């Protein structure tokens, strides 16, 4: 017996795993548990949850399949991986939906118990793929996960349904075995999560360990795998999703500015977690207001900004549309608010749980009148923290609304985050006006920002609102010259932000002919594609926009110095449109709007096509 346990240990550089099952099978939890474990053992990683909008679509159907993909490596990685090496399929529908994306020769682990006639026909299988030879090109491992879990949990006082629910932890345990992992992170989680339900602790622990032991004892698996820790920059790390990083960024901005944080919000996928995280943080005095609708979400924030809070509102595409008029009000009243748009597939309700980059033009232009605002975008999950701080800084300094664009992929995806030293993060200065001398509501400082005089300040009573205001004095004004001046000033103020943001940095080969240009959440995929092209001998340069309005100062110079510019986007060419109209520079577009992150391979193919077939020489 002992001998049989000696399984071969193979070292791999990188692995992509996809967990897939019914939306009630707990695949998101399994995926995040595996991610936390992966981060903890020191691999670099990147994740992509992919779940249906229906909370519990009919069991066993293809449209009810929920997936979680993660990519981990001993080297730097930037994407969740194009194609999985390993697929864990909890039922036939999960297999059917995900098999086409598995790498040829990849590993398939299936819950063989679920391959009964009913589930096969729900998944539209004419014959059982485990028996008909259709999986011949893969390494298939049939594991009776449901029955093994039941056996492991015999004697525990739980209903059969509750017992069945722990089968994802059996699968997780098996994967921990397969990748030579300690169980600690998940055991800790189980004990914390079910502190008041000892029977749940026992059940989940047993299922997890049974999965692990199964790997150890069975003869099905002849080898297991290990991925060495990545060489990350020294520091303390945690795994973080974009939405959590966003919430923590605004909390930090509140602490660093000394302003109480107010969030006015209406739940919307995939942005709701920001409201959820912040509503936990009452010990910081954070005020979260779950409003009756999107409009109240932003207008309460505008009221809170008027009263002197760091006021923010979060939403996704349809909500941004609903907030448009109120953003105009914040432009007119020149109050600092931040609007976070976690972009999802559109238009209309579109693809609520999928990712997209198609709100850029709405963010930049989508308001009545000349209503310029500052628009920023985060490029990775942990970068959301930095951009939340940056959005707050700019909003307060320039007394302006700022729109922060993230997207469903980086919001729900996660990566290791090197934690900042809190003392080293800069303070955000706030100057409430106190003195009556020289105070006028629309007088401006050197940044063209108007003074922030909050209710409660003696002798500074004033009225602001959505009607055009006279310059300096702030009284309602219909004067034509004044209107032109104010329209111009508001724009100039926003353009001034250019002087206060970092220049673009060219990555890769600065002296190349081809420049690849991206923005926001596609950073990882573009970076990886550029790296791969360079490994193949192509000379490629890359820039990535996190400041979309205004653009960084050196944008024009950079764009003008390359012969060819390729712009990959998950829309039909919105940044391309802005570049052409702003800089009179033509670009080559690469657009795929599938509700999914761009694939490295697709961008790479396009780079090679554009660069020319012979290594761009």
């Amino acid at each position, binding site marked *: 017996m002992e001998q049989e346990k000696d399984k071969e240990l193979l070292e791999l550089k990188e692995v992509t795993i996809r967990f897939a099952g019914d939306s009630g099978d707990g695949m998101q939890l399994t995926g995040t548990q595996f991610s936390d474990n992966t981060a903890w053992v020191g691999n670099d990683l990147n994740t992509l949850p992919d779940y249906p909008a229906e909370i519990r679509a009919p069991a066993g159907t293809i449209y009810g399949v929920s997936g979680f993909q993660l990519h981990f490596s001993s080297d730097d990685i930037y994407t969740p991986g194009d194609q999985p090496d390993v697929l864990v399929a909890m039922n036939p529908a999960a297999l059917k939906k995900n098999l086409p994306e598995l790498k040829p020769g990849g590993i398939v682990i299936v819950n063989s118990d679920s391959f009964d006639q009913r589930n096969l026909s729900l998944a539209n299988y004419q014959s059982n793929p485990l028996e008909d030879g259709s999986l011949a090109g893969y390494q298939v491992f049939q594991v009776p996960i449901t029955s093994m879990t039941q056996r492991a949990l015999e004697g525990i006082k739980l209903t059969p349904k509750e017992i069945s629910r722990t089968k994802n932890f059996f699968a997780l345990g098996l994967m921990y075995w397969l990748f030579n992992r300690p169980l600690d992170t998940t055991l800790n989680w189980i004990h914390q999560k079910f502190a008041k339900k000892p029977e749940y602790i026992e059940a989940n622990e047993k299922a997890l360990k049974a999965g692990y032991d199964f790997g150890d004892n069975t003869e099905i698996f002849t080898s297991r795998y290990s991925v060495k820790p990545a060489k990350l920059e020294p520091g303390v790390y945690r*795994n973080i999703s974009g939405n959590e990083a966003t919430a923590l960024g605004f909390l930090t901005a509140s602490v660093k500015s000394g302003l109480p944080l107010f969030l006015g919000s209406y739940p919307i996928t995939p942005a709701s977690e920001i409201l959820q995280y912040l509503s936990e943080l009452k010990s910081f005095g954070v005020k979260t207001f779950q409003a009756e609708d999107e409009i109240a979400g932003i207008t309460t924030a505008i009221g809170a900004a008027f009263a002197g809070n760091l006021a923010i509102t979060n939403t996704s595409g349809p909500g941004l549309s609903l907030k448009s008029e109120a953003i105009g009000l914040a432009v007119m009243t020149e109050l600092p608010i931040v609007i976070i748009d976690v972009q999802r597939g559109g238009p209309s309700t579109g693809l609520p749980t999928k990712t997209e980059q198609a709100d850029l033009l709405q963010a930049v232009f989508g308001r009545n009148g000349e209503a310029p605002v500052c628009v920023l975008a985060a490029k990775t999950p942990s970068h959301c923290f930095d951009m939340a701080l940056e959005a707050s800084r700019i909003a307060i300094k320039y007394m302006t609304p700022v729109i922060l664009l993230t997207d469903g992929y980086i919001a729900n995806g996660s990566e290791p985050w090197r934690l900042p030293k809190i003392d080293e993060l800069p303070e955000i200065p706030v100057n409430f006006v106190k003195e009556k001398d020289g105070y006028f509501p629309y007088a401006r400082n050197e940044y063209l920002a108007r003074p922030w005089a909050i209710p409660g300040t003696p002798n500074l009573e004033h009225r602001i609102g959505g009607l055009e205001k006279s310059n300096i004095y702030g009284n309602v004004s219909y004067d034509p010259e004044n209107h032109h001046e104010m329209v111009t000033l508001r724009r100039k103020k926003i353009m001034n932000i250019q002087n206060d943001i970092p220049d673009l940095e060219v990555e890769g080969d600065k002296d190349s002919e081809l420049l690849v240009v991206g923005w926001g959440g596609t950073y990882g995929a573009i970076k990886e594609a550029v790296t791969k092209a360079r490994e193949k001998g192509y000379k490629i340069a890359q820039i990535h926009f996190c400041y979309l309005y205004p653009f960084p100062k050196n944008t024009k110079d950079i764009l003008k110095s390359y012969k060819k510019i390729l712009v990959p986007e998950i829309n039909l060419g919105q940044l391309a449109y802005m570049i052409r109209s702003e800089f009179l520079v033509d670009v080559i577009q690469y657009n795929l709007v599938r509700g999914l992150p761009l694939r490295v391979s697709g961008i790479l193919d396009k780079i090679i096509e554009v660069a020319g077939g012979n290594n761009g020489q």
Partner: protein
Amino acid sequence: MDNKTEVREYHYTAKDFASDQDVRWCPGCGDYSILAQVQRSFPEIINKPKENIVWVSGIGCSSRFPYYMNTYGFHGIHGRATAIATGVKIANPELDVWVATGDGDLLSIGGNHFIHTCRKNVDIKIVLFNNRIYGLTKGQYSPTSFKGQVTKTTPFGSVDYPFNPPKLALGAEATFIARSIDKFAKHLQEMIKRAGLHKGTAFLEVFQNCNIFNDGAFDLLTDKDTKDDNVIELKHGEPLIFGKNKDKGIRLEGFNPVVVDLTSGHYSVNDLWVHDEFDPSPARASIIMSFDEREGFPTPIGVFRQIIKETCDEGITRQINEVKAKKGEGSLEKVLYSGNLWEVK
């Protein structure tokens, strides 16, 4: 609700609340009276620095109101006044937040914010200028216009039923609901003071004459020949009596209110319905609010109902304090450096 026991530290006059802006409503508009009564009653109820007062409005004639008050003011966008005001109040609970709004602003485009403000008992005072017409857009029918009312957009008469605003507020659980009329200066002042002293959502409907697009809408209630027979003033603890000679009363028979003649010898004052502002059940207030929908009944003015319960900002502050007491003041270090950490050397 007198205020005798309170020590007054701040002594303002009506003038202190008037801004330097020229008031630009149409001459003869009922809004002038509302502005005047607010400025006259504020010195009696504002016992805090006046910089702690904020007036918020939406869009419409009434919503120009904040420009004419020498307080902090925010002229918002159409329908959103109560939401903006909610944000102001929650951000700084020390502030007294008032909303000036109209029937279109509050009940049409802003209906959703209004009912949720009431439901959450946000501590703001809402003064509804109800003229049963859209004035600023020049004469279209509003959600309080009568069925059959002829306006620019209902040339053959409106087919819609109007909202009864106090009933809407009651259904949405507002904790203070009252009504007055622009021309009844004293009564209006009294209602403004009552609203101002209430802790929680105070809803005050003011019938306001638009002399340009709906002139005379409330003549029956304000003309000296007709008002006594058509208006009943609600007073806490007093029987419901009205009429020129105080000769008519209202009894409650089961769920049915009945107008009775006090001169016929069948009924005396002792048989009448005695108004209870603080009735915990909303049922009787609802019946009173429906008087003017009934043939032969007078239109009620005064305080329909007032109850006290935790306000929205009190609840938020309480929770923050409870969590801080339990967990201590938040530490950024602890929150950022939490979860499964690992160190790379």
